[in-house]
């Protein structure tokens, strides 16, 4: 992973000092709440329902074991012993004391971490494929590009006060695990025929109140133009994005109003003045950053490990875990594994300080000390020898992180919802818990097969409900909490070639206690109507939402 040099370190130390001064001025009454708000937000500090919430950046989801131990320490020392991983691959703490936040930032800075721009109307933490560098279907490793872009947006002086938040994601695989079509800017990297790296730039996607699948406005952009081109996109947006209405301030609204072609022409006009300027990425800089992302010191294996195959044959529970939580690796004899942060008794994405410490130990023992965060709110070890998988599985079971549900219905994405978030109209966590209880039977879960279920507690769509195969949205009706169900969303191009799509709402919303039964009816309808090994999303796309709708609302009719 990228290791800071002296200048990178100095900059985050500068930030800690700046924010300590801002916090002191606020606490002394010299800075009003209104003036402090944008400043604290750009440091990831919200004022939530019960207490402040601090969101710590995990750039493109990459952590080392030292950093994870620091996150555990912060959970233990400054919070209530746990943290919550988010769909932007960040971690947030729900109970810090505002006056202590500068101390937390100072601790984070000692392990090259920070909370810079994890919130606010600025460029947010960049997300990427959690299997970057190791995925079997990867064509370009996105990490060095993501790091160069991280440095570019960090304290970008021109774009710190945009009309709204700005989210970017990057993918270098044929299967899109970064949901690049529903970001303000999505970047797809691929090699040209001569081996040089090109990017397709997707702009104006996003969820929220007006969900839109983004448009490719630039094809085949040379990699060294990424920063200048993004400068041009951001400048057009900063100048011409709406500021009169926060619901219409995202770049997707501007792109939609102008049309992607016109918007792309405006960007090209702007870019013409920037592309050959100092922002063009020098090869030497790419080489410097890329040196941090070289393949690990792998051992050589001819093929699959024999003991691994034997363990699978003799232990069905292990085989089941392997089938869901172990992922193909570029190198023979290695795999990536996912620790599931989804199970009964805790909120999706939550993890305790003790679990974090153990995950760090396991990463040191089995995976070169590196840990990844996925936008599905799970943790990943990317470089595990197959001969170690069984021992790792047993350790993960002890930690209660071995739920074999990756890609299945109970691997739900859920925002913190009304239990924590001041914006939410409805709770998410009890919905997730209710569904997890209903679908506790693993055989049933495996029979249902691949299914993304996403839950958001409000229209801001932090739980990405629009791109869940099943989406659940909390809505407020006359002061009480209701849940709207949508079907047919898909987060990104899958191995089976299903492109990004937005779910369709099936009809009137439901009360909290009805939701698990409604999901059950949808699943039963799918099981009755599916053809062969058709996945849920493919059935919905073939059949439309009508058969599901009929079944779900049959009783009421």
């Amino acid at each position, binding site marked *: 992973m990228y290791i800071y040099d002296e200048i990178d370190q100095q900059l985050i130390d500068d930030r800690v000092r700046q924010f300590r001064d801002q916090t002191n001025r606020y606490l002394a009454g010299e800075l009003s709440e209104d003036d402090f708000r944008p400043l604290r937000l750009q440091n990831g500090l919200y004022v939530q329902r019960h207490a402040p919430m601090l969101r710590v950046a995990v750039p493109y989801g990459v952590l080392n074991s030292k950093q994870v131990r620091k996150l555990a320490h912060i959970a233990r020392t400054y919070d209530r012993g746990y943290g919550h991983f988010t769909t932007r691959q960040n971690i947030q703490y729900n109970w810090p004391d505002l006056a202590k936040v500068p101390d937390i930032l100072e601790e984070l800075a000692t392990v090259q971490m920070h909370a810079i721009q994890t919130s606010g109307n600025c460029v947010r933490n960049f997300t990427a494929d959690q299997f970057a560098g190791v995925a079997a279907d990867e064509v370009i490793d996105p990490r060095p590009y993501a790091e160069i872009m991280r*440095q570019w947006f960090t*304290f970008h*002086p*021109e774009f710190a006060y945009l009309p709204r938040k700005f989210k970017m994601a990057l993918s270098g695989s044929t299967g899109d695990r970064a949901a690049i079509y529903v970001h303000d800017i999505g970047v797809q990297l691929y090699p040209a025929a001569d081996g040089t790296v090109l990017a397709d730039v997707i702009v104006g996607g996003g969820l929220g109140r007006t969900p839109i699948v983004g448009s490719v406005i630039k094809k085949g952009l040379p990699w060294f133009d990424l920063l200048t081109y993004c400068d041009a996109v951001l400048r057009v947006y*900063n100048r011409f994005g709406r500021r009169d209405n926060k619901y219409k301030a995202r770049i997707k609204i501007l792109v939609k109003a102008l049309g992607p072609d016109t918007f792309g022409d405006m960007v090209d006009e702007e870019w013409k003045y920037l592309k050959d300027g100092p*922002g063009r990425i020098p090869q030497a*800089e790419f080489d410097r950053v890329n040196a941090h992302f070289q393949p690990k010191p792998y051992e050589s294996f001819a093929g699959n490990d024999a003991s691994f195959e034997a363990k699978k044959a003799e232990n069905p529970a292990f085989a089941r875990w392997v089938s869901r939580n172990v992922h193909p690796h570029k190198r023979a004899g290695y795999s990536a594994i996912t620790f599931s942060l989804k199970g009964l008794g805790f909120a999706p994405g939550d993890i305790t300080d003790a679990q974090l410490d153990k995950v760090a130990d396991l990463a040191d023992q089995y995976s070169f000390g590196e840990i990844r965060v996925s936008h599905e709110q799970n943790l990943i070890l990317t470089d595990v020898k197959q001969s170690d998988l069984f021992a790792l599985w047993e350790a993960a079971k002890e930690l209660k992180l071995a739920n074999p549900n990756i890609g299945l219905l109970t691997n739900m994405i859920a925002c913190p919802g009304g239990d924590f978030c001041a914006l939410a109209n409805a709770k998410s966590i009890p919905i997730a818990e209710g569904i997890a209880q209903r679908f506790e039977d693993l055989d049933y879960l495996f029979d249902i097969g691949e299914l993304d279920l996403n839950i958001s507690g409000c229209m801001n769509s932090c739980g990405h409900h629009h791109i869940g195969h099943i989406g659940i949205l909390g809505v407020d009706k006359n002061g009480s909490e209701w849940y709207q169900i949508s079907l047919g969303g898909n987060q990104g191009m899958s191995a089976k070639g299903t492109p990004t799509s937005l779910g369709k709402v099936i009809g009137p919303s439901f009360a909290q206690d009805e939701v698990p039964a409604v999901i059950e009816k949808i699943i039963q309808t799918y099981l009755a109507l599916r053809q062969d090994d058709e996945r849920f999303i493919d059935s919905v796309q073939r059949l439309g939402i009508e058969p599901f709708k009929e079944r779900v609302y049959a009783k009421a009719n």
Partner: protein
Amino acid sequence: MPKLIKNGQVLDDTSVILTDSEGNEVHEDGDAIVPLACWLEERHLLKERHTSVGVLLEGDAEPAELKDDLDFLKLIVINFPSFVDGRGYSIARLLRERYGFKGELRAVGDIQRDQLYYLARCGFDSFVIPDGKDADAALASFNDFSDSYQATVDRPVPLFSRRRNQSAN
């Protein structure tokens, strides 16, 4: 009276905004500033005034409209109706980097000390600090950061190119 930060000094802001070329109630050593629309309409008359005239741009202004006047103008003022309205940062860079404006570029309106570093990076070199804010204390904010990653007006070579030169030496 609001304070003007200029060249690292805190001064009284004695500027007056005129709405047309006839207004002449300008303080002797103050700046006369006219809105862009007024400048475009009465540019010829305004150019004949004894005191120099600055032009005031709002966030929706198109800086290219001043392209031919930049050699004449000694002052361009950009208004921030709210400190969270960041359009002025882009306009400033366009004036400095694309159109080559060399005169004084002033930020006015809802300016907080916590924005001064970024404003300076984008090419502003004078700042009107609103009444009730401590302009002397604000001076410290110009040193909030020791370096910056990006190419900026006051440091046009981005960090990655400076790093490269360091390692080449």
